């Protein structure tokens, strides 16, 4: 059974078509990477799925239910969590309270929410910093906080928007391990990523888009050798040079 099924998705911003006839099916438990050059429409697709933007056409089925037109918070309650490319922590609150706001998605009791948050923090190896104000966190820790917060909402599908961007190699290793652990818990993942290492070591499947359209889909190494993909990333000239 497919968890998420997108078909014919389209988004126009005035005269500009950002996403055109995009289709994607994700099965339960998969890790799918969405890649493409800058401005290809990756984040737009995320915003369409999570309800920040309303599609101009097409449908998004989550657990066989159309979620187009629902508000962002309703979509979160259905079980789709997301993280932001530019992290958006609640700056005035401590780490644990940030996570508790996510955990309140499943309960209205503060004590249960706190308990749940502590579990999530422990799961992500973050417990020692639970009372820190956000101002004292490094960027890697802030990314981890993004993960913890959205994980606390107990999503079935998690949309990760460039969680490995801006991290050093060691931190990247850590976050890859974390993402794998999350997936092993049964959370299906759709991730936007530029860091190839993350993609090749995590993704079961890669979807490449350019100018809002899907240009390739398949296993990581096959897709990355696809001439269309190489062209999209490196340009026509590179390919001609390769062939000579």
């Amino acid at each position, binding site marked *: 059974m497919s968890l998420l099924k997108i078909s014919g998705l389209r988004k126009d911003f005035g005269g500009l078509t950002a996403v055109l006839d995009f289709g994607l099916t994700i099965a339960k438990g998969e890790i799918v990477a969405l890649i493409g050059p800058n401005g290809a429409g990756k984040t737009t697709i995320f915003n369409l799925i*999570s309800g*920040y933007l309303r599609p101009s056409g097409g449908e998004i089925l989550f657990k066989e239910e159309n979620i187009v037109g629902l*508000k*962002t*918070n*309703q979509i*979160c*309650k259905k079980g789709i*969590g*997301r993280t*932001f490319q530019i992290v*958006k*922590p*609640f*700056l*005035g*609150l*401590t780490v*644990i*309270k940030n996570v*508790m*706001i*996510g955990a*309140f*998605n499943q309960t*209205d*009791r*503060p004590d249960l*929410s*706190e308990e749940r948050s502590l579990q999530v923090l422990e799961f992500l190896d973050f417990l020692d*910093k639970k*009372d*820190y*104000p*956000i*101002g*004292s966190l490094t960027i890697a820790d802030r990314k981890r906080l993004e993960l913890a*917060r*959205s994980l*606390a*909402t107990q999503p079935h599908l998690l949309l990760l928007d460039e969680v490995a961007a801006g991290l050093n190699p060691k931190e990247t290793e850590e976050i890859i391990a974390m993402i794998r652990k999350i997936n092993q818990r049964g959370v299906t993942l759709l991730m936007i990523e530029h860091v190839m290492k993350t993609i090749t070591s995590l993704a079961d499947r890669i979807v490449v888009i350019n100018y809002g359209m899907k240009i390739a889909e398949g296993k990581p190494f096959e897709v990355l050798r696809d001439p269309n993909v190489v062209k999209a990333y490196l340009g026509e000239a590179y390919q001609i040079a390769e062939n000579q």
Partner: protein
Amino acid sequence: MKRDRSGAHPANSFRNVLLIFFLVLLLVLPFFLNPYLLHIMIMTFLFAYLSRNWDLIGGFAGQFFLGPVVMFGIGGYTSTLLNVHFNLSPWIGMVPGGILAAATGMALCYLSFRFGLKGIYFGLVTLTFPEILRVVVTNVGFLGGVNGVLIPFRQNSLLYFQFAGKLPYYYISFLMMLLSIYVMYRIERSRSGYYCLAIREDEEAAEALGVDTLKYKLICTGIGCFFLALGGTFHAQYLMFVSPDTFFGIAFTLEVIIRSIVGGVGTLFGPVIGSFILTPLSDISRGLLGGYRGVHLMLFGAIIIAIILYLPQGVGEWFGRVYDGFRVRFDRNVDRKATPWRRGQGAKY
């Protein structure tokens, strides 16, 4: 605050002792005060109450709500008119007043947010709305017109919320202040409270975590406006008079908000501390410097500038630093990075 749950370390019991001391002090204080000082204390409590309730919307949930005076006015006028025309006790009349104010506030909120007016634009809507009502009330005879409405003195009775002396007003306003603190204390610890904080910090992120931002904005506005309106009834009964200028004038809005800013926006005790500093200050400086017109306002302004310069998060910040200082000194297990006040990062909750 949440972090206190770990147990009763010395800084904590120090705070409790301090609170009980102030409570007892304020309970016995009126017997030593002359009517003038009693009046100042009543206004201090009233403003603490109003600022506390404004701060729920404006500080805690971070909405640019510049119209507390509308709710105040609606509360005062509703209970007064019901009292004068229908002989209804203000104790009962304050309930429809509160409900009307809550409905008005929520309607304003809903219309603004529905059409995407946020931040400063929402502020403009709420700032101009009292002006509209002021003009309406000034020109409608039934509502008392420009002269306002005088509340006839029937008898010295609790039933009619009318007293000959100031002492009962002192205790009623004191209780109202405690009530507002208690309400806030409860909200702070509930899911709604956490959601309000999330909305203040980042609405987009809050939505992504399943927070129905519109709903919780309406809830906190409703609660805040309801209690602001009760403050209006109290003020009306205290003055025995309602007039468009005091009950719908913009000056009053500023008075309420400035106390919250000086004490510490979005903190439990900040607005109360602000009122305890500014209300006596403004009254006493007016009394002492009244001979020189406007000098007391200059003094007032200078103090506010000084506080904003040196304690940008309000006087409450200073208390927070002392509190963190105590924790670090007496509790060796405290993680020093987890003392935000001391580090000047001011994570309040």
